[in-house]
């Protein structure tokens, strides 16, 4: 096969920006599943819900930024309600968490289908982003670079939050030993509800941004969930850097195999996951527990 250097760069850049989207979509899942170990199978539906809510807000106002903010806040609120009313009651019980959140995922998914229909939809990003940007060696869509920028920002934000703030210390201590954290005077339940909302906010952001990047339709929630699972497990549960590395790996594999061997994309994706887990059962940067 003969590919030029520019094409190679293009494929790489596509992979990296797609990785950005994946990391963004998985960031909330890293917090909730990777760190807090809450098996939130409704993660994908938060993403899809954000995209559809964004659609409604866009139809009403025509302002993309408003759908980005409004939709994310609404999803964060839904995450709060889910955690506060239901998930808290089954906390620590993996099986019940899984069944409960799967059920919620299916129910909300069907409601969205009834409401919005099954046709693929797409949000329109502001014209600001539709202008291609010249990177010197190639011309590249501005929106994709925006996606990459936002994902880097989210990554740095979460890193700083975990490392330098009191909430970060509470999260890390609570993940290590929830009982002991409570026994030193910390209201760990409240902190974890806060983290759940934050995760909802990021998933909401990624839903609107992702819905403007690629079309979405019912079923996209399962896609997002599976990719988030792969990213978090490949990178290593509880490791933020791992999630970034996992997203980058998946993004590049996806981009290269889709261009070069389109029929083998899934094979390469899951083959890599298998190989990594065979040699590093806790993921690329995961720690043994």
């Amino acid at each position, binding site marked *: 096969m003969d590919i030029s250097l520019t094409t190679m760069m293009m494929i790489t850049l596509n992979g990296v920006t797609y990785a950005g989207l994946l990391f963004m979509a998985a960031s909330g899942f890293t917090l909730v599943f990777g760190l807090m170990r809450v098996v939130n199978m409704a993660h994908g539906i938060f993403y899809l819900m954000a995209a559809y809510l964004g659609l409604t807000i866009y139809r009403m106002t025509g302002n993309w930024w408003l759908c980005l903010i409004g939709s994310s806040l609404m999803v964060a609120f839904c995450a709060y309600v889910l955690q506060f009313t239901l998930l808290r009651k089954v906390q620590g019980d993996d099986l019940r968490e899984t069944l409960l959140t799967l059920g919620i995922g299916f129910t909300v998914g069907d409601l969205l289908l009834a409401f919005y229909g099954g046709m693929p939809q797409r949000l329109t990003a502001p014209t600001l982003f539709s202008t291609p940007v010249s990177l010197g060696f190639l011309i590249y869509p501005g929106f994709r670079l925006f996606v990459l920028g936002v994902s880097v920002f989210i990554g740095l934000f979460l890193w700083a939050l975990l490392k330098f703030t009191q909430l970060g*210390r*509470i999260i*890390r*201590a609570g993940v*290590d*030993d929830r009982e*002991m954290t409570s*026994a*030193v*005077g910390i209201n760990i339940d409240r902190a974890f509800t806060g983290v759940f909302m934050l995760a909802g906010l990021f998933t909401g952001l990624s839903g609107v941004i992702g819905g403007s990047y690629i079309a979405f339709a019912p079923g996209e929630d399962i896609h997002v969930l599976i990719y988030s699972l792969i990213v978090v497990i490949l990178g290593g549960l509880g490791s933020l850097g791992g999630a970034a590395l996992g997203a980058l790996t998946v993004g590049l594999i996806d981009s290269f195999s889709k261009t070069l061997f389109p029929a083998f994309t899934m094979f390469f994706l899951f083959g890599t996951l298998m190989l990594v887990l065979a040699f590093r059962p806790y993921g690329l940067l995961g720690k043994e527990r």
Partner: protein
Amino acid sequence: MQPVLEISDLHVFRQGSHILKGINLSLSGGSLALIGRNGMGKTTLILTIMGLLKASTGSVRFKGEELTGKKPYIIARQGIGLVPQGKRVFPSLTVDEHLRLVFNPKRISKADSIWNIERVYALFPRLKERIHQEGNRLSGGEQQMLAIGRALVTNPSLLLMDEPSEGLSPILMDSLIETCHRLTEAGISLLVVEQRLHFASAVSDKYAILMTGAVVHQGAFPELLRDPNLLSTYMGIGNSGES
């Protein structure tokens, strides 16, 4: 004088079995050692006082206030500190982060002689040398210091210590005894669960023996150590006074 801690007719079940069968215990300052063989319910009692286990009936009063049914973080904020069995320091937090996580000046009412982070470092200079080490990279003795320091920065008036001497070398044990004396001198009451009589009697002057979920004997240490019958009945040891 009102007791610091007063437990009456406390019953606790764990996984269906009746572990604590009507505990009655009172502590009015100073240090009390809770002794007895393995599996008699000592740790269960400590965890129940802290709110980490639920009491089915009975009451636990701290300075007159009922604790049963309260969440652990509320109990901690009322002034009870826990140094748990196995230390349970946080593996992913550094020494400094442990103390900064817990110390909250806004929550402390008394203005004078508060336990802040500097005071903990003054008590345990060793911890200051390990300030940026993660909890799981400390030695057993350092972890014990950190577990005590972490409890102290909540500014407790009662400290619950569960098997504090576990896994410590004789030298470290001596310094732990000295630390305990300094804490009681600073006005903190101690409830110490111990297997080792030598350590327990050095830290406390009073003892309570727990056997199959009830307090079967209470008194002052010098008498216990002189009484071979008591020792063999409750502690399963000869009259050497050592375990």
